């Protein structure tokens, strides 16, 4: 929530998102979090593409086609009428060997999240100790400004900082959810 607020505050000028255009350097972010619950339990909490209520920044998830490939969802952030992110699911595995889903953003304003061509994997793996998990959230994206010489709030660092903030806030909330003894 806080990080999204920062991202929102940081974006001043309106820059239209050009479909499929991007600067030449793709960025990547990986955040991992230990969770004190089994992979089955954690996946039951995180593994539904149609329910992102586990993330404190997400007010509402509205989508269609469940966890099928090409399922879509619209995330409303913060509050009723808040900024939105439209996403599409392109990989989904809920086998014991691999619990993971992958999606990409189909529409977001750079004021909401200063990235373009964003894709992401969310994976739940067994932790080091029995009954624990390791949650890994990975993102690949380009900065919000697709041309040379980006303004500061739409450069590579701004994009990485915003995505990292969202991942850390989300995964911290997941860890706290299970630490609270749910």
């Amino acid at each position, binding site marked *: 929530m806080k990080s999204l607020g920062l991202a929102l505050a940081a974006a001043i000028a309106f820059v239209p998102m050009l479909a*499929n255009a991007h600067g*030449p*350097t*793709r960025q*990547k972010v990986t955040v991992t979090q230990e969770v004190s619950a089994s992979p089955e339990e954690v996946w039951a909490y995180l593994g539904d593409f149609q329910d992102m209520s586990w993330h404190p920044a997400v007010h509402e998830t509205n989508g269609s086609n469940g966890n099928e490939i090409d399922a879509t969802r619209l995330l409303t952030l913060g509050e009723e009428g808040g900024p939105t992110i439209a996403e599409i699911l*392109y*990989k989904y595995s809920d086998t014991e060997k691999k619990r993971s889903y*992958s999606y*990409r953003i189909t529409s977001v304003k750079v004021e909401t999240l200063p990235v373009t061509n964003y894709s992401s994997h969310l994976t739940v793996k067994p932790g080091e100790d029995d009954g624990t998990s390791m949650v890994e959230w*990975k993102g690949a994206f380009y900065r919000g400004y697709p041309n040379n010489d980006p303004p500061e709030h739409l450069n590579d660092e701004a994009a990485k900082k915003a995505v990292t903030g969202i991942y850390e806030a989300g995964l911290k909330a997941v860890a706290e959810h299970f630490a609270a003894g749910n």
Partner: protein
Amino acid sequence: MRRTGIGAAAGGLAAVLSFGAIADEAFVTNQSSEDVSIIDLDTGDTRATVSVGGKPAGIALSPDGGTAWIVSPESKTVSGIDTAAGKVTRRIVLDGGPLGIAVHPDGETLYVADWYDAKVHVIDAAQGKAVGSIAVGRSPSGLAVTPDGGSLLSADRDSDQVSVVDTKTRKRVATVPTGERPFGITIHDGRAYTADVGSNTVTVIDIAARRPVGRIRVGERPYAVAFARGRGFVTDQYADTVTVFDVETLTVIGKIDVGEYPEGIDVTPDGARVIVANWFSNTISVIDAETLDVVEEYDTGDGPRAFGLFIRETE
């Protein structure tokens, strides 16, 4: 043959023995760590890590294997790495947004696509500077030169087309429509194949006839295409797979799981192994072109892209 010259230059029995052990090598551009990994494809060992700076992506090797030309979009620089020494010996500074690169069979002329300015730089390697430019479509990315040196092909990503350029006159002579957002382009046996990022297809172009003759549905967000054993191999960035198709029938015959966000792809000169750079995993996957199994995975630097032809023959 190429080794002879290197061995003679280095001199000494130890050098000869050591060069005698050299296998084919991959020159992998690591965009995030801003360097190039030179990887022995028999052992997986990194012989050298060459710092180039400027977020390198595009790569092409000179026909004699002596120079690896590396394009760094952020510093707008083409770096020439002496492949035997593993050192940058040349620097050519450009403007705009250089990305893809191809070398003319004469070894003297380099072509560098300018992503922002809808043109291709023509560079004289000996002079070390741009000597001309060729107008093409929007956001040119992958480049390829026909084996006879007569034509340069540019994948014009945001024009959904390939530009065909006469290398003598440096003028565009035709455009050929592709699927959406062609990125990588590879020439094989009189045909050009584009990886169409937007439509998840490969477009097959008859170069002489200057028209598309086929389209193949591949995995999510294809990046580039390579050829071995009568098969085409396509990296599917979002699917974490390589799609394999039959070159005769243009039908898909398999999907191979590789690392995450596979991008650059090339083939060893004997056609036995296909090498894939996995951008997110920081590895290369080695695929047996016959069995279609991944037989090895070797470490690279951070963010390997290897956009272009990146394997050097050393036998």
